[in-house]
């Protein structure tokens, strides 16, 4: 592990007009974006932190999540954390952020010539004002909750991706997000896909650090504005250090016949809470939502999902699978909502949790709210240990119990991993699963 230097107390940010203006100036942002941030600051100030009274926050252990006093560095020339393994293989473009700064930026020239954009969001706001302005915070509202408002006011790790009409980007586009342990981070990813375009975006976040680092907060907003007949895949691999409290809000709006795959793979963080909301208002649109995680120690891994169907003939399929060891806990609260106009819709949810130790726990809650009649909806949720029949079978083939259990767990997670985009990513995730399962537990009964 890289030793994390002590963070400068002066980095501590208090959300204020001054902080927003200083940040906007340092990122060389146009006035409209600064004003947008200031208005988000006002929203932040008008909201309270989510409380346990709200259904989607009832099971989130907010004790220990730092809700003020964040160290939000903005440093030039920082290295990416070692934990950020290359994931994309042969990529078509790349944007790296570390400790609040853009550290690398590249895009295939042919694609750039065809109008594809892969830029820091601040730069895009400057150079493509009309395009960015027309979409920023239109899919994920600033006031979704207090975290999104905070992010909208003070993000420093922004990405803008634009896919011109009808264009297919074959190779993946990458977004790396790194930070030092103890540092907090706020980010924003905005993808605008014009009709008929196709692309895959892989976002990977990591930090080096140990369980003794100071607690930190990250929040990242993802917005996917997907026009008719687009095919977009976004996979996010989360590998924050064990003192990070990671929040993600990802929203997508799907046009007619649009097709989305949104995958989140979670290994790191003390607490990971992801709110994923898909607006399937385009008729015939389809979304695959995938979740894959391995929880160890006292990690809390939570997914809140919403599959909102208002378009005719839409379909969506959620699959979340995770393995939990030590005292790790998982929550899945997922809603399939079909409005009366969402006829001929199919909505599915599957949540499966493997509990590998006595202290592990899981609360899967798949909710259906159906107002249309011509629908096919189903959900399934399960919690249990490794199936002894499977282990018995492998043992009968001469495999000792421990490797047999490992094989069953990997096979269980493999079902989701196989649906991730690209062979290179699938292999990288398989290695990360193995490494996570192999990590010795830190301390019996350790509190987060």
């Amino acid at each position, binding site marked *: 592990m890289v030793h994390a230097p002590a963070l400068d107390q002066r980095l501590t940010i208090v959300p204020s007009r001054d902080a927003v203006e200083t940040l906007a100036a340092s990122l060389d942002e146009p006035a409209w974006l600064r004003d947008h941030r200031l208005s988000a600051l006002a929203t932040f100030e008008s909201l309270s932190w989510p409380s346990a009274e709200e259904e989607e926050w009832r099971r989130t252990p907010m004790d220990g999540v730092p809700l003020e006093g964040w160290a939000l560095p903005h440093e030039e020339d920082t290295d990416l954390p070692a934990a950020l393994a290359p994931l994309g293989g042969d990529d078509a473009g790349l944007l790296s952020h570390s400790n609040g700064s853009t550290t690398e930026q590249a895009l295939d020239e042919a694609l750039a010539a065809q109008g594809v954009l892969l830029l820091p969001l601040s730069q895009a706001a400057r150079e493509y004002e009309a395009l960015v302005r027309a979409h920023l915070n239109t899919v994920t509202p600033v006031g979704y909750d207090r975290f999104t408002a905070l992010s909208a006011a003070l993000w420093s790790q922004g990405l803008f991706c634009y896919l011109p009409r009808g264009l297919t980007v074959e190779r993946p586009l990458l977004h790396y997000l790194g930070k030092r342990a103890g540092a907090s981070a706020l980010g924003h990813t905005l993808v605008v896909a014009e009709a008929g375009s196709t692309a895959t975006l892989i976002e990977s976040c990591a930090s080096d650090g140990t369980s003794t680092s100071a607690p930190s907060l990250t929040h990242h907003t993802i917005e996917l504005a997907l026009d008719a007949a687009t095919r977009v895949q976004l996979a996010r691999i989360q590998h924050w250090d064990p003192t990070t409290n990671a929040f993600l809000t990802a929203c997508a709006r799907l046009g007619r016949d649009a097709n989305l795959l949104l995958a989140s793979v979670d290994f790191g963080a003390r607490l990971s809470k992801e709110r994923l909301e898909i607006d399937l208002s385009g008729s015939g649109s389809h979304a695959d939502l995938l979740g894959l995680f391995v929880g160890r120690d006292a990690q809390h891994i939570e997914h809140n999902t919403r599959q909102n169907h208002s378009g005719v003939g839409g379909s969506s399929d959620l699959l979340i699978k995770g393995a939990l060891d030590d005292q790790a806990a998982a929550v899945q609260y997922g809603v399939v909502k079909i409005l009366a106009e969402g006829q001929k819709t199919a909505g599915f949810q599957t949540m499966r949790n493997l509990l590998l130790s006595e202290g592990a726990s899981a609360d899967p809650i798949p909710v*259906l709210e159906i107002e249309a009649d011509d629908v096919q909806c189903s959900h399934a949720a399960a919690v249990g240990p490794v199936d002894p029949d499977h282990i018995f079978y492998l043992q009968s083939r001469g495999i000792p119990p421990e490797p047999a259990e490992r094989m069953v767990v990997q096979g269980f997670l493999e079902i989701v991993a196989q649906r991730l985009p690209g062979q290179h990513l699938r292999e990288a995730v398989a290695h990360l699963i193995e490494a996570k399962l192999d990590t010795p537990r830190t301390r019996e009964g350790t509190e987060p």
Partner: protein
Amino acid sequence: MPAAIKPDVQKPDIKKEAYEYGFHDKAAAAVKLPKGLNPDVVNTISDLKSEPAWMRELRLRALQYFEQRPMPEWGGDVGAIDFNDIHYFVRASDERDEENWDDVPEYIKNTYDKLGIPEAEKKGLLAGVGAQYDSEVVYHNIRKDLEAKGVVFLSTDQALQDHEDLVREHFSTIIPPNDNKFAALNTAVWSGGSFIWVPEGVKVDIPLQAYFRINSEDMGQFERTLIIAEPGAEVHYVEGCTAPIYSSDSLHSAVVEIIAKKGANVRYTTIQNWSNNVYNLVTKRAAAYEGAVMTWIDGNLGSKLTMKYPAVYLMEPGAHGEVLSVAFAGQGQHQDAGAKMVHGAPHTSSIITSKSLAIDGGRTSYRGLVKVYEGAAGCRSNVRCDALMLDDQSRSDTYPYMEIDENRVDIGHEATVSKVGEEKLFYLMSRGLTESEATKMIVNGFVEPIIKELPMEYAVELNRLVELQMDGAIG
């Protein structure tokens, strides 16, 4: 002050006759407390029943809890209930708790004749019958051979007089007065209900039955049922509920507590067909001990809003809990029903099967909880919920909560929501059935897994009720 309370005279006002059980009897009540809820009303109920002091104190404490607790903000819309516009106690007749059917007042007898209750008893289909009319039980009888074996089947009021120690030992231990707002209300003003005690090893082989009828307008019915099955005992209790249709809403808020001791087998069947202006807010819970089997069979066809989640707390190894639930929501109805299974001990098992139908703008919600405590290794739970949507005006929700704090378990939940399949309809219609006949056939097949668990005459009844509902909606 009790003296301040004077019975008033009931003024019936029938608005609609279409509902089959919509008739009501025009005879004046013997005692009817004025509307509203306060300590005087509670004291008066306790006075009228000549209760021991501990019960009066429990009622008064529960009233405080009721007043302190906020209305639930989840589930159905209970905001329109006006607690000041309800009669909390109506004694239909001075003749109470009769053992001889001939002694039951004529107008009440007519009601039950129309419902076919004495029929089944005469035919020997039942081991015992209780009939509650408004606040109190008007008729009670049990087969002599069961009585000889020591089986107690009384109105809870009578049981408090005859078996005070037994009641006191168990009353409110399964559902304490402050469990929830409506349990608190029931504890404050409860009246009637059944008390059943089955001695060790005694098997009551055919059902005990109770029939609940709300007859007065603006009345609340708050029966309280307590069933204790001693080790190895077996009993099946069946209850049916009806009410006339008035222009204003009524409230039914029962509490049912069940204790199934080691190796006991208790089955509790409800066919709820309240008229569509009754708020049906009921707390039902059972504790099942070592190797005991507790089954709730819950048919919800009537009411304006039902909120009811029968629970089984699996307290000791080998206990098994089961809920079979069928809900039918038509126009203006919301059936928010479900089940709770709490696995508190190793090697306990549970099954929840829920079937719901929404038609004509009705709304069905399945709301359930499976909880497994840490240390309850080797538990199994299987939840299966299916909802059928019969038109695009209706709504179906599924809220299956799970809290699993133990890894050596096998917990599964599956649910589906779908409409009546066009292929199936087409197939049946190609065989000469009309669309409504074909739809009914599909619906019957859909609820069949629950129907087949019912005693025969109830299966017939439920089928008939489903068809009646369908006729109103699609006929």
